[in-house]
C-alpha cells in the first residue's frame, strides 16, 4: 500500500527537477560529471541574452551560490545569466575520486568541462565569460593561459583574483604597512593599526612561511573590519543566504575545509604572473583598493602582462577583497559594460 505512493513521489520529484526552464528567467541546476566528480552548476538569470558568466568561486572551500545573493547579482542577472559552479570537493559537489585527483590542473580541466557542458546545454551560440574571484582567480588564470580554452571564452573577468600566491603575500604586507601608516595619521583605530603595523614590520617578505601566509589572510579580514567601522569601506550589501538554499551548509563546510587543507600546499607556491602574456581574450580586472588578501598591485600586474587588446583595470576606491559586496552597483555596471562590448 505504501510502496506505490513512495515510488510515485520519487518519480514526481525527479520529473519536477527536469522541468523545462524559462530562458529569460533561468533558475535551473546542471550537473557536470568529470573524472569522478559530480559538480552542480546553478544557472540563474537572463539566459535569453545568450551571455553566460561562469563564476569560479573563492576559497578553496567556498561554494558557487555564496555569490548568488546581493545587489550586484540582482542587477547582473537581469542582463545576463550566471552559472554558479561548485568546484570539485566543495559546496554540494560529490562523486568518487582519489586525493591525487584533487589538484589545480584537474580543477582547470573541470572548468573546461563546465564550459563545454554549458555550450552543449544552451547551444554553441552561447557566449561564455569566465569570472574568478580570489582563489577562483587562480583557477580562472590557469584556465585562460591555455590557448585552446581561450577559444571557448568571449572574455575573462578577474575580481581580486589570486593568480600569484607568493607575490600576493609580499604585496599584502606592503599594503598593510602603507594603509596602517595612513590610518594612524588620520587617527583611526590607532591601537589596532599600531598592532597591525608592528606585526607587518616583523614579517620578512623575502621568506614568508606557509603559516605566515595564513596569518596574512586572517589579518586582512581584521583590517577590512577596521576600515568598515571607520567608514573607509562602503557597507553596500548585507544579504544572507536563504535557509532553504540548495547548499547544505554543514556538508559544504566539511568538504570545503578538507579540500582546502589538501590543496593548500600546492596553491601556496602557485605563480602564474609570468604566463599571463599568453592571454589574448578581452580581459577585465576588478579590484578593491583595500584588498589585503590579494593586493591591487596584482591587478596592475595582470593588466600589464596580458596581451589582450581590449583590457581594463578598475580599482574600487571604497572596497576590500569583495567589491561586489562593498560597491555592488558600480561592480555590476563594469561587468555589464564589458559583456555588452564583447558578446
Amino acid at each position: 500500500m505504501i510502496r506505490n505512493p513512495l515510488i510515485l513521489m520519487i518519480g514526481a520529484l525527479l520529473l519536477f527537477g527536469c522541468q523545462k526552464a524559462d530562458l529569460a528567467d533561468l533558475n535551473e541546476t546542471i550537473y557536470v560529471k568529470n573524472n569522478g566528480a559530480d559538480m552542480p552548476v546553478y544557472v540563474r538569470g537572463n539566459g535569453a541574452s545568450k551571455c553566460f558568466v561562469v563564476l569560479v568561486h573563492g576559497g578553496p572551500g567556498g561554494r558557487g551560490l555564496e555569490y548568488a545573493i546581493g545587489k550586484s547579482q540582482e542587477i547582473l542577472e537581469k542582463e545576463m545569466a550566471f552559472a554558479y559552479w561548485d568546484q570539485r570537493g566543495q559546496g554540494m559537489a560529490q562523486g568518487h575520486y582519489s586525493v591525487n585527483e584533487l589538484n589545480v590542473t584537474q580543477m582547470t580541466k573541470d572548468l573546461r568541462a563546465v564550459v563545454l557542458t554549458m555550450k552543449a546545454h544552451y547551444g554553441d551560440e552561447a557566449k561564455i565569460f569566465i569570472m574568478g574571484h580570489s582563489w577562483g582567480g587562480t583557477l580562472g588564470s590557469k584556465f585562460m593561459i591555455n590557448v585552446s580554452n581561450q577559444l571557448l571564452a568571449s572574455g575573462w573577468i578577474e575580481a581580486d583574483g589570486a593568480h600569484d600566491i607568493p607575490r600576493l603575500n609580499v604585496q599584502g604586507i606592503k599594503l598593510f604597512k602603507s594603509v596602517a601608516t595612513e590610518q594612524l595619521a588620520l587617527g583611526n583605530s590607532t591601537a589596532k593599526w599600531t598592532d597591525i603595523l608592528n606585526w607587518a614590520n616583523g614579517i620578512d617578505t623575502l621568506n614568508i612561511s606557509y603559516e605566515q601566509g595564513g596569518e596574512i589572510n586572517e589579518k586582512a579580514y581584521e583590517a577590512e573590519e577596521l576600515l568598515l567601522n571607520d567608514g573607509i569601506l562602503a557597507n553596500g550589501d548585507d544579504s544572507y543566504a536563504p535557509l532553504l538554499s540548495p547548499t547544505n551548509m554543514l556538508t559544504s563546510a566539511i568538504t570545503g575545509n578538507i579540500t582546502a587543507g589538501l590543496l593548500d600546499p600546492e596553491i601556496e607556491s602557485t605563480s602564474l604572473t609570468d604566463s599571463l602574456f599568453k592571454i589574448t581574450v578581452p580581459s577585465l580586472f576588478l579590484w578593491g583598493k583595500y584588498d589585503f588578501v590579494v593586493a591591487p598591485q596584482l591587478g596592475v600586474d595582470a593588466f600589464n602582462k596580458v596581451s589582450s587588446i581590449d583590457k581594463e583595470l578598475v580599482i574600487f576606491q571604497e572596497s576590500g577583497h569583495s567589491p561586489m559586496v562593498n560597491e555592488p552597483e558600480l561592480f555590476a555596471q563594469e561587468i555589464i559594460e564589458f559583456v555588452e562590448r564583447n558578446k
Partner: protein
Amino acid sequence: MNVGVEYGLTEWIKLKSKVKPGRGAVNMVKIHQLVVAANLGVLWHPKTSTSLLNTYTIEYRKTGRRRMQYQLGLGGAYMRSFFPNAYEVDEDGEVYSRPLGSAGYFGPNHFIGFGRYRTFPRTFQWWHLRIAGTYLLDYNAFLVPYLTAEIRLGFHKKPLGE
C-alpha cells in the same frame, strides 16, 4: 537544507520489563527493548540532487516513567543521489547527456533520540525525535558526515506491555 520522508519496518525483542497496572490502563514502568529496523527515505530539494537513503539499524530502546522513550542505535546505510540535467564529459572533451546520472555511497550510521509511547493498543502508538549521523565513505576523496533530524511516528497495534 533538504526535506525528506522515510518509511520503515521494525521488529523488536523485549529484553526486560516491569509492568504495573494503572487506572483502567496499562501503566508501563520500565521496558528495555532491542529494535531492528529497515528504512527507506527520500531527501529532496528542487534545485539539487534527490537522494534515496536506505538504512538498516539495531537500536536499544528504553521506556521509562510517564511512557517516555529513549533510544540509541547504530547500523549501516546506503545513499544514492540522482542528479537533474546530468552531463558527462570524457577525456576528449565530448559531452554526453546522462538522464539518470547518479552516485552512491555506503557508510555506517548511528542515532540518538527520545519520544513518548501512548497507552492502549492503537494505530498511532509512539512519536520520536531523532538525530542521526551517517558517515558517507568515498564521498569526494574522503569521508563526509551527513546529519538528519527526524520526527518519527510509530503505527502498529502490538502493545508493549503484554
